[in-house]
């Protein structure tokens, strides 16, 4: 009992968390209002497209949250988290495909269109059960979770750490991308899943359904934020941070480092999977390009921009970076890669604590004592194991 009260007390003292949760609630109220209640003629009206975009940003924000949990607190840099996101998305997509039923182009009540098109005679076994929403939700959690469990078990047990782990995870998502591009995998190949009709009976064309999906997404962001916050504030959270700062020392103190790592890694993968599942009905498509290594690494830079090891920083970073991406890819498409590239370089060089750490960094800079600046940088460097 005592343990939970400490978490609660620490959460109440945490002003960042308070502001963050208030912000989420505000968005959950204001944006659907602007979309549904404000007339189209008004300057304050939010278009359906805009509403979906915000939903997308927060799905990515949830993924960023998952990445921050393992990178910011445990020092594990996964360059393949997009894979868990996409797997969750595919699980939801399979449900949505089955939900189309006989309304597809070919009107087959069981087989999705692409299977009819590819001359498949019957549903592959791994598609069974996806006509039930509950089963699909279970899979959204299980598939990424089990993959992370197996992968993490192998990796952490043999002490694959640091950049090695990063590269292996990148290879994982790359391999999955290659696999899902194949038509005979039974996941729609290149085109993936699209043309969804409804979700548990609610029409996916309706803006009201999308408003509800947005609210659910925000609620899930808040929930996973609270879960992550509870974990990092707990005793286990301290061990996890100890692993980040000095893995060998933590091991020598008697902690089972691999178990802690495995726990956060699996939890993080599950959060990523749920984010993917929320993403698919709002965007209306899922295809293998979600597995692209670039997607995963973009999320990492979102976390770095927002500020590592803060959790809310990840959400802020993801929303800002993805907003910038939308802006640039429509206004000046060829500039986006320069901007993104420059973000990677500038943030790692000049913003060790991201945007949310900017104020304290500026304060130190303005005070202008060299010692203080170095002190700040060294503290920031502690966010990952140093090589001296």
């Amino acid at each position: 009992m005592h343990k939970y009260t400490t978490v609660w007390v620490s959460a109440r003292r945490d002003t960042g968390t308070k502001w963050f949760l208030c912000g989420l609630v505000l968005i959950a109220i204001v944006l659907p209002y602007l979309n549904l209640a404000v007339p189209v003629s008004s300057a304050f009206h939010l278009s359906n497209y805009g509403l979906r975009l915000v939903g997308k940003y927060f799905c990515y924000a949830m993924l960023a949250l998952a990445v921050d949990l393992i990178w910011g607190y445990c020092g594990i840099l996964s360059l393949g988290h997009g894979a868990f996101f996409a797997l969750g998305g595919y699980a939801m997509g399979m449900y949505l495909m089955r939900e189309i039923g006989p309304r597809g182009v070919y009107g087959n009540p069981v087989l999705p269109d692409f299977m009819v098109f590819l001359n498949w005679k019957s549903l592959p076994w791994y598609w069974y059960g996806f006509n039930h929403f509950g089963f699909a939700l279970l899979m959204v959690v299980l598939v990424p979770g089990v993959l992370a469990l197996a992968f993490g078990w192998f990796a952490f047990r043999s002490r694959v750490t640091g950049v090695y782990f990063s590269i292996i995870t990148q290879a994982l998502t790359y391999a999955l991308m290659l696999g899902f591009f194949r038509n005979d995998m039974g996941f729609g190949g290149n085109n993936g899943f699209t043309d969804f009709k409804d979700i548990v009976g609610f029409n996916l064309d309706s803006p009201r359904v999308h408003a509800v999906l947005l609210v659910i997404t925000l609620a899930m962001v808040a929930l996973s934020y609270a879960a992550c916050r509870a974990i990092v504030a707990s005793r286990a959270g301290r061990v996890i941070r100890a692993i980040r700062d000095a893995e060998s020392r933590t091991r020598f103190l008697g902690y089972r480092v691999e178990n802690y790592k495995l726990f956060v890694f699996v939890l993080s993968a599950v959060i990523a999977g749920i984010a993917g599942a929320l993403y698919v009905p709002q965007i209306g498509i899922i295809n293998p390009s979600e597995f692209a290594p670039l997607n995963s690494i973009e999320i990492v830079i979102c976390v770095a921009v927002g500020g590592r090891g803060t959790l809310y920083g990840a959400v802020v970073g993801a929303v800002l970076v993805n907003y910038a991406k939308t802006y640039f890819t429509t206004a000046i498409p060829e500039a986006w890669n320069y901007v993104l590239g420059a973000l990677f370089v500038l943030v790692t060089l000049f913003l060790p604590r991201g945007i949310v750490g900017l104020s304290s960094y500026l304060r130190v800079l303005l005070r202008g004592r060299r010692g203080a600046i170095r002190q700040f940088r060294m503290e920031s460097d502690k966010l990952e194991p140093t090589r001296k």
Partner: protein
Amino acid sequence: MKKRLLRLGAQWLFLVLLLTSRSTGPLYAQPLSDSGFLAALGELPDAGFDDKYRIVEQLAQSGHPSARAVLTALLEDRLYCRTQDKKVFLVKPGPEDAPTLELIDPLTLKDIGSAPTDTLDKIVANNRLRTILEQMRARFRLSSPDAATRLQAVRDIEQNLNADTIQLLRERSSTESDSRVKKEIATGLALAVLDGSDTQARLSAIATLRGSLRQDVVNKLGSLIEKSPDGGYVESDKQVRQAAEAAVKSIDLRRSIYSGVQTLFFGVSLGSVLVLSAIGLAITFGVMGVINMAHGELMMLGAYSTYLVQMAMPERIGTSIFVAIPVAFVVSALAGVLIERMVIRFLYGRPLETLLATFGISLMLQQLARSIFTPLNRSVKTPAWMSGTLQLNEALSVTHNRLDIVIFTVLVFAALLVVLKRTRIGLEIRAVSQNRPMARAMGIRSSWVDAMTFGLGSGIAGLAGVALSQITNVNPNLGQAYIIDSFMVVVFGGVGNVWGALMGGLSMGVVNQLLEPYTGAVLAKIAVLVALVLFIQTRPRGLFPPTGRASENL
């Protein structure tokens, strides 16, 4: 009695003369002078077919240097005579209904302008004449001084064996000096004997054919052991059948060994591309502890440098590649040093952040290439000396560009070893990588060494780009396709070890190539990745793990 003996002697002499004149006829014939040659040629247009046979024979035996060209032209319907003065000309091969024909003088074989088609009459040949001409051509080619031509001639003859062509081969086999041509003739003669009925001859023919590797030989032997639809064997002679069966088995075995060698070679050549891109990474990743995600883009810079060099010297594609090698090295090395000085040096000791920053650089470089060169494929021409295939034997051939890449990789690798082991900068690089503070204490400017190391690794990436430009299209995504594989190679081989990169690259290439026929390209790649993840379980630090103090820091 005396009279009879005399008659016998005369008959015998006649016979000998007849035989020698038949078999060595051309040697005894008088070489025709130019005027004689022209006179014989002049008879052709108006001659009947019987005369034509004679004239053709006369021309063939004339020993005149132009005879071959003229007879070939007649065979290919390219011999014409001018209507007004009955002069005979060769014409160049051209479209069927061209209004004018390009004339060639029959004596000097030089171009002498063109003439309208309707002022010329074709000198026609019938089937018998064609057969005679074909034989003559085969004879000409068989006695060509060029061994490759003779070899091809034998192969062509094998396609239609008959009494005449077999005779030709027999004649040639006694005088032939080149061992390959000789072997080919023996194969051809053996193939001919197989159709005969003499068991002993056929058995020895099969023994000869056993040494061959050719598919058509296997097919021919295979036809001997086939069963007819009613269940019996097509071939009635049991001895021949068994010998043929053994021969087919032996040939098949050797053919499959050679095809294994070929797969191995493909694997090695694929692997050497990986090695080229991975040794640069091994240096920056291993020696400096720096993850350079922009490595692939440095390769891309090398490939575009090759393209630009080729654009600058379009008439000399063959030599441009030699210019491109140093240019690509310098361009990529400079880019590498620039990246190191501007970004990476601020991030030493923070490998994950270095990874992100260099990834950002790779995005910018890619976009830069896209802005300058457009996203379209730019194809770099392959020099003539690098195209084509090298036929080692009937079952084994290697393409020149793959072979050259393997050689190039070996050279680059050797050069790198020399730099690392034999030069001062190499010594300093190794010192800094083993123990940075101690190296600094000994007076080595470690930051300068860092820049040079990064430059060296990047320069090698540029060289890899040159090699890549020869086998794939050059586009802004060139580096992306190889970067993950190269990292796998480094992880597999062990960090900080160029030998590890070599072994890792070659074995990944070979394994990929071995798996591909069974699983397809994509699954092979996935299988290799999965195998690697499992491999890391048992050897987390790769095939050649770093040892000593340096290993603690990675």
